């Protein structure tokens, strides 16, 4: 019995040992190998920068894509920012949609229009750029790319690209909020001082411009060696283009002389200085003189759908698809061509387009007469390339946007609210039966804007010089406006500075429509109070027999108060940071 017990003890001991050793020696890693850290991404042995490139891609991916950007439900099926201006309204049935809130001022510091009033988003972009800028140094990156004055190391180019993107994010903040905290190069950690005060407007602008100046010669130039993979990269052209826009904004009345809180250095300059217009004009002139690669391409509609054309300076890459067509195209077609008509351009916008010879509607000196029963005949050709209206040819059909027409049915669905649909950015589907995939890049900078920036700044500083005239004439030539007997393309000779300003503003509105320009332009020109005090109108076209009656109806009563020239800084941000000063009026 005793020996039996002994055996049992041994057996028991053996079992315990086996069990313990089995379960203690698991063959797994102590940390998940699929989790990687900064050391792996910015590797000291990765001379091709394979992982760092992926990080740079994510820095690029935070540049916004503007087509149907403003939306609360999901990516890029919302509204154009321009639908919050007098150019268009949203067709959405949602009474609380974001652009409607922007146009009617239904927001406060604590209930902001999140899709547009971003704050943390841009700081996130700034941080990821800074992380790249400070970490890429340890990667032994080889290779060079071609800059303006010869080869530049790839590492310098990448770093400069990230700095450009960071400057772009800062500019997005500044145009929304005025001066903002400049957080510097080193990404901050928890425990670091995060209660940074806002820098002044002037400091913010100077920082952005300084960054652009210091990176411009480390960037590639167009034409890019390998557009298939690098067509999207930041180039010297992009840096100079952003600089012209930054300087133009800084010189504009809202910040230069028209500061809404005249002693407040955060909301603009505290004085007026005409040299700021000169700086903007010089920057644009430098662009036009130095970067001769860029030009206006002959066909206005090709600008947006032809990749790599010489007018495009910088863009956020999109895919080949029909999403712009489907989101904004007319309803009433059969799948897969049935759009949901999200954007309804206004009558106010349509009326801005001149006649074919460049003269205003009602100008008796025009060779054309506006016909209220055929209101779209003999107009600036850009009208048909920007807006679809009743009788427009589209998908091989004449659009019917009259009440009860095929493209404006009576059913309570999302459809045009103004009898107009958007046409711009779409492929040339006038004479095809079906949509096909089209390149839908979001073009942030194109040469036409440089010309307009130049004309505006130059007119403000030097008055309506020949150079200014020339720019407008170039744009109108390309648009297809007839030169007229005097080759003035409908422009008056010897305009005053004010008349020229009005002409430039109008040209900018037509040329740059839906490109996220006008929303900011009416603010920096400080005319938002006028613009939003007019009623936004649309058409109701009723059919009686063969005759169509065009009736103008009100579609939206926008509002404006002065505090809305700048967005409110997020309420939590002011609460969490004792040094954060809210914008006036919020």
């Amino acid at each position: 019995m005793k020996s039996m017990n002994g055996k049992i003890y041994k057996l028991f001991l053996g079992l315990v040992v086996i069990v313990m050793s089995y379960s203690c020696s698991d063959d797994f890693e102590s940390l998940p190998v699929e989790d990687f850290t900064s050391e792996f991404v910015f590797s000291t042995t990765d001379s091709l920068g394979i992982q760092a490139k992926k990080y740079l891609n994510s820095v690029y991916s935070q540049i916004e894509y503007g087509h149907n950007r403003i939306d609360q439900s999901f990516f890029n099926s919302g509204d154009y920012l321009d639908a919050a201006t007098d150019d268009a309204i949203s067709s959405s049935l949602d009474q609380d949609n974001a652009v409607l809130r922007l146009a009617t001022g239904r927001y406060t510091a604590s209930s902001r229009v999140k899709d547009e009033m971003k704050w943390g988003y841009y700081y996130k972009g700034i941080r990821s750029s800074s992380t790249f800028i400070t970490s890429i140094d340890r990667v032994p990156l080889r290779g060079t790319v071609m800059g303006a004055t010869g080869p530049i190391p790839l590492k310098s180019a990448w770093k400069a690209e990230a700095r450009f993107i960071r400057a772009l994010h800062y500019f997005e903040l500044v145009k929304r909020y005025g001066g903002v905290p400049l957080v510097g190069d080193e990404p901050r950690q928890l425990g670091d001082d995060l209660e940074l005060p806002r820098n002044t407007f002037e400091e913010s602008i100077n920082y952005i411009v300084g960054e652009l100046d210091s990176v411009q010669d480390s960037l590639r130039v167009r034409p890019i060696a390998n557009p298939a993979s690098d067509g999207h990269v930041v180039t010297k052209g992009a840096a100079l283009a952003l600089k012209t826009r930054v300087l133009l904004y800084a010189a504009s009345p809202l910040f230069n002389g028209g500061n809404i809180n005249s002693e407040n250095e955060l909301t603009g300059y505290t004085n007026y200085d005409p040299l700021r217009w000169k700086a903007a004009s010089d920057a644009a002139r430098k662009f036009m003189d130095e970067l001769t690669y860029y030009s206006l391409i002959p066909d206005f509609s090709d600008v947006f759908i032809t990749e790599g054309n010489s007018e495009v300076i910088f863009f956020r890459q999109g895919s080949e698809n029909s999403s712009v067509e489907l989101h904004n195209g007319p309803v009433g077609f059969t799948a897969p061509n049935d759009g949901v008509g999200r954007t309804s351009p206004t009558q106010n916008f349509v009326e801005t387009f001149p006649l074919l010879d460049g003269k205003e509607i009602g100008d008796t000196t025009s060779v054309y007469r506006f016909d209220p029963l055929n209101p779209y005949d003999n107009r600036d050709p850009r009208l048909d390339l920007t807006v679809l209206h009743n009788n427009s040819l589209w998908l091989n059909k004449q659009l019917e946007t009259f009440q009860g027409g095929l493209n404006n049915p009576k059913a309570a669905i999302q459809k045009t609210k103004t009898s107009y649909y958007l046409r711009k950015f779409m492929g040339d589907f006038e004479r095809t039966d079906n949509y096909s995939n089209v390149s839908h890049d979001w073009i942030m900078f194109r040469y036409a804007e440089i010309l307009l920036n130049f004309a505006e700044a130059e007119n403000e500083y030097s008055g309506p010089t020949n150079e200014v005239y020339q720019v407008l004439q170039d744009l109108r030539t390309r648009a297809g406006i007839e030169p007229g007997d005097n080759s003035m393309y409908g422009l008056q000779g010897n305009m005053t500075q004010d008349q020229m300003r009005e002409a430039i503003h109008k040209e900018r509105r037509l040329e740059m429509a839906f490109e996220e320009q006008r929303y900011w332009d009416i603010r920096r020109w400080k005319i938002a109070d006028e613009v939003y005090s007019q009623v936004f109108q649309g058409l109701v076209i009723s059919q009686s027999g063969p005759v169509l009656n065009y009736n103008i109806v009100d579609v939206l009563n926008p509002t404006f108060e002065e505090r809305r020239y700048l967005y409110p800084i997020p309420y939590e941000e002011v609460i969490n940071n004792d040094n954060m000063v809210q914008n006036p009026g919020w």
Partner: protein
Amino acid sequence: MKKLIFIVLFTCFNSIFAQTINLEGKVSSDTGEALFGGNIFIEGTSRGTMTDEDGRFQIAVRQGEILTFSFIGFVTATKTVENGDFMELTLATDRGSLDEVMVVGYGETKRITNTGAVSSIKAEEIKYVPVSSVQNTLSGRLPGFFSQQRSGQPGRDASDFFIRGVSSLNAGGNRPLIIVDDVQYTYDQLSQINVNEIESISILKDASTTAVYGIKGANGVLVIKTRRGKLGKPKINVRVERGIQTPVRSPDFLDSYHTALLVNEAYENDGLQPQFSENDLELFRTGEDPYGHPNVSWYDAVFKDFAFQDNANIDISGGTDRLKYFVSGGAFSQNGLVKDFSDPLNEVNNNYFYRRFNYRANLDFDVTNSLSLRLDVTSRFGNINEPRGQNVVSEIYDFSKIHPYSSPFMNPNGTYSYAYDTQDNLPTINARIANGGYNRIRRTDSNILFGVTQDFNSLIEGLSVTGRLAYSSVEENSRQVFRSSFPTYHYSSENDSYNIDPRGNYAYGTYAVLGNLNVSTKNLNLQAFLNYDKSFNDDHNFNFLFLYNRQSSGAQANVPANFEGYTAKINYNYKEKFLLDLNAAYNGTDRFGKDNRFGLFPAIGAGYNISKEDFFHNSFPFIDLLKIKGSYGVVGSDITFGNRYLYQQVYQSGGGYPFGESQTTYPTVYEGSLGNPNVTWEKARKFNIGLDGNMFEDKLSFDINYFYDYRFDQLVTREDVPQILGIGISPNNIAETSNQGFDGQIGYQNTYGELQFNTNLVFSYARNKVLFKAEAQQAYPWLTETGQQIGQPFGYTNIGFYSEDDIASLNDGNADNDAAVPLSDVPVQAGDLKYKDLNEDGVINNFDQSPIGKPNLPTTTLGWTLGFNYKGFSARVLFQGAFDYSFSVIGTGIEPFKSQFQPLHLQRWTPQTAETAEFPRLTSNPSTINSSAAYMSDFWLVDAWYVRLKSVDISYQLPDNWIPFDINNVRLYVNAYNLFTVTSYVKYQQDPEISTNTAGDSYFNQKVVNLGLQVGF
């Protein structure tokens, strides 16, 4: 010795009159089990006998003598011997017994020597509740147990439960630890367990009892012990049941006529043309045009009145000196309430259902006198079926998808129709159920536990060593069968024509099949412990345990998470009078950084059994037990959220983006949330003091505890970090809460002749408070969450409706008497909900939201059990109630034009009913101030309570002489679950346990009435 007694007894008989009877009898429990090994004495003598394995006994008695039946765990009963030679007796379970054994962490404790807060229940009491999930049977039965059943869907109806409420702000961090036979289970695994396999259930609530789990103990522990074989002949029990289920509450929607009236009224309010003409309304009212002007109650069209559920169990148990066994099998089937729309041409079952098969074999093998082995094997195979891609209840509610007048159930020619007057033009719900296919989830849950115990009594008396290895795995995969296209038509009764829907499918599409692996988890647990159990002079009683525990668990392909630790526990008592428990665990998980991994969690418990003092016993002889107990200690919780390794900053692979002019997508990598190098477990300091007592010969018993828990180092994400940081941050150990309350039970039992009666009142109260949560400083004091309860709702304060005078004043251009209004493009109108402008700035906005109502988890729950036994009959009833909580319904649950029109909408505000209205004016505009989703207010929040007849169980034990010889017992029973509900809310048509701030459109909670038969061999 036995022989000697027998001879003595025999001699006694002979010496007295010959009036003796040779009495035979049988003793069984109130649940029908034969009771083995109980003592039977003749009062006033020393004569007696014991029952055998079948509960039978034989004794020679004289008429008029009184027999006393004394069985451990049962109420002692007496019975006078009358005529007849067969006596049958049913004993009631003793709820107040001093020797009652309760299962706790790594062992058992007796009630008399326990110093902690433990509530315990025998599975016998819940075995007959006709539901599939064990946690649904516990509400109202265990003090300190809080539960909410959020859905009644077959297979997904397990309640959420908490022990002593919640105390962590970390949303997932309040779930109790679940321990089955000393091995950790998940919530899902728990809900699969067949109640028939369970012996007893305890919940551990204080530090003294949970400290052995250390880093996992802070949320309380639910401990389950399964049944094991006992010495004796094989006993076979077979149980079959069939029940019918009906919804506890089903919604009632308005018919086409009334809906159309209200739609017209809303349009008129919004300045729009009415949608329906007088003629339309007349046709809706008369129903003369059933295809052109349909009137379909989609609820009645889609749901059945009731559905069946079936349950069958068999278990075999017994044992010899060397081998004891318990083997059981079960099958449970629960059908769904949706009608059968399946296509006669195929057998695609698109209804809800749940089927579960399970088995368990618990074997104990005594290899030698000192070495024993144990092998437990169990598996559960579950099948959940549901219509693919649709929640049928939510479909019924959703006004945007279908109206009562959208389309007929079927077109006159037998084709399906579609909701042609809605934006999506969806086919009718019956068409989509019939063709949409199903999603079937198949799940296999397996556990194996191997254990070996060697006692070293020969070396040191009372010493034993045990090793255990437990393995569990879950494999879950799903099969989806669906068809995406099928034809539907709109029938026009005017010109008798059919129009195909806009999708233009003229023919049925093919079925497609999709398979997914959803879950694949493995869990390996190793335990080794040393146990020392010894009494010195019967005065000093020691129990000592030292445990090493290691666990490694992984899901899918992930690296397993590891847990490791040591536990020590010393229980000492002096003559069961002075009690002392010292418990401690030193353990940790690899979820935290190397320096923050292991923590020590000590706890102390002490008790004083004053009733064991002579002076006390002499002064209060009617008090059988009075014990004061208290405990204090620290326990932890390692539940984290977000990135698994919070101390690490991990870079993440993001979505691809197309870069360059080619359409190639390039990969991206981005910086993940900042790591928090100091992250560690949450901690709770728990204090408990209680009073435990029995009086009047154990007829009255009570156990009452007060507790105060301070929970700190809670993991929450700081809300006070400026966004200019530019990156997400990992949670920090910063938040603090307190939680205090009391819970307990008071029971009473007595026997009146042959009637046995018992009742038990269970009560729980727990109220928490946020002490610190690093919230941003708020603009107004009423916006602050600190100081409120966890989950406190915030919203507007309703002060009636805007009156016509209010609106007139707003429009008169004089701002003096203007009511505050929201910034909205839809101007407020008379009949809109009016809210209090807390900061008096004339605008209703976020700053006017303050704490309204109460959190959704009740602070107070009650349970009241009543039991009767009379001869073979027994009845048991449980009333359960929850009090002091709030809930609301939003969106498709209540709002007009989002929800179907409901009877409440008839009580809307109109100029005529301004005084009596119970609902704001109707509007088709979805985001006005009247929307509960956009403007949550106390108008929408119901201050709730409910009382339910939670379960009823009536059974009849057939007398032995009615049943054939080799059958041991036969029991017939009827039982019910959720039989009726009384509640404070009338506003909504949902069950009072739904999740708040949702549409409340989860599957209806079920009422079950069940008929069963149990046969024992």
